């Protein structure tokens, strides 16, 4: 442990207190993120209990192979991020940069697969207000599902994109020797954000893709 110099800012008693403060701060932010997505899930829940058959029919039109793969990709990126934070705790700079780079690559993979999925949705005329077409009954309610599908996955994708930007920044900082075992708060905080984006997807996945499968 590096003691004293630059291990913590002057308003803190010690490095431990500083760590707890930053941890508290990021969790407070994460709680607001949970509430932000909570509103979307609440809107989803209300609409689904009103139109259960339409939501089941709409869910069958989504691509489970692509979304399932993406879930595995995101879970794996959460592992590599955790291993990155572990490397930071030990002060293993090369391992830290390596794990962060893998995490960025996996985040990009997620977005690419998501883009492929959107393209499939477009070709199948599932994009509301653009080319939506549904031959069966309750076409308007099915379209409502797809409004939510694109909004929820779109906002989540934006969070993934922001996460990738943060992790890439941290990777550059790490390669310039910005962190020590006594101070690696940016790595820790970015990791917590990335895990939360993962957790949100763990709920998005079943409610959009798994409602009703044949």
């Amino acid at each position, binding site marked *: 442990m590096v003691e004293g110099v630059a291990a913590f800012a002057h308003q803190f008693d010690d490095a*431990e207190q500083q760590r707890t403060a930053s941890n508290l701060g990021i969790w407070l932010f994460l709680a607001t993120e949970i509430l932000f997505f909570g509103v979307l899930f609440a809107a989803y829940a209300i609409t689904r209990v009103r139109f259960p058959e339409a939501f089941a029919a709409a869910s069958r039109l989504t691509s489970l192979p692509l979304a399932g793969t993406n879930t*595995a990709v995101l879970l794996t990126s959460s592992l590599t991020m955790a291993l990155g934070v572990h490397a930071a705790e030990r002060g293993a700079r090369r391992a830290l940069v390596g794990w962060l780079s893998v995490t960025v690559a996996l985040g990009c993979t997620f977005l690419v697969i998501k883009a492929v999925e959107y393209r499939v949705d477009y070709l199948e005329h599932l994009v509301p207000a653009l080319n939506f077409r549904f031959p069966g009954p309750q076409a308007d309610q099915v379209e409502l599902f797809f409004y939510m599908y694109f909004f929820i996955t779109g906002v989540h994708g934006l969070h993934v994109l922001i996460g990738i930007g943060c992790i890439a920044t941290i990777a550059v900082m790490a390669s310039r020797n910005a962190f020590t075992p006594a101070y690696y708060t940016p790595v820790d905080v970015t990791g917590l954000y990335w895990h939360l984006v993962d957790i949100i997807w763990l709920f998005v*996945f079943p409610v959009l893709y798994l409602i009703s499968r044949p």
Partner: protein
Amino acid sequence: MTNHTVTRPGVYIAVWLILLALLALTVTAAYMPLGWAKTPVNLAISVTQASLVMLFSMHLRRAHPLVKIIAVIGFFGIAIMIVLTLFDVLTR
């Protein structure tokens, strides 16, 4: 983060394997004839997965009590929002 103990990498890998197994389980459940229980089963698996990520990957297990409270408040807020809204919608 009160006692700054480091989680071993093996723990993260074990959690990852369990998370992937739960993913396979939730997809399998979606294809089974569970009727009304399908969504509750899917969501229970999601809650289990989210708990594992929070306790181990996000180190909530060894977090300061205040941090634990804030983490719980976020999910508690959602629960209130969804449950009370549904009470209104379903009883009209």
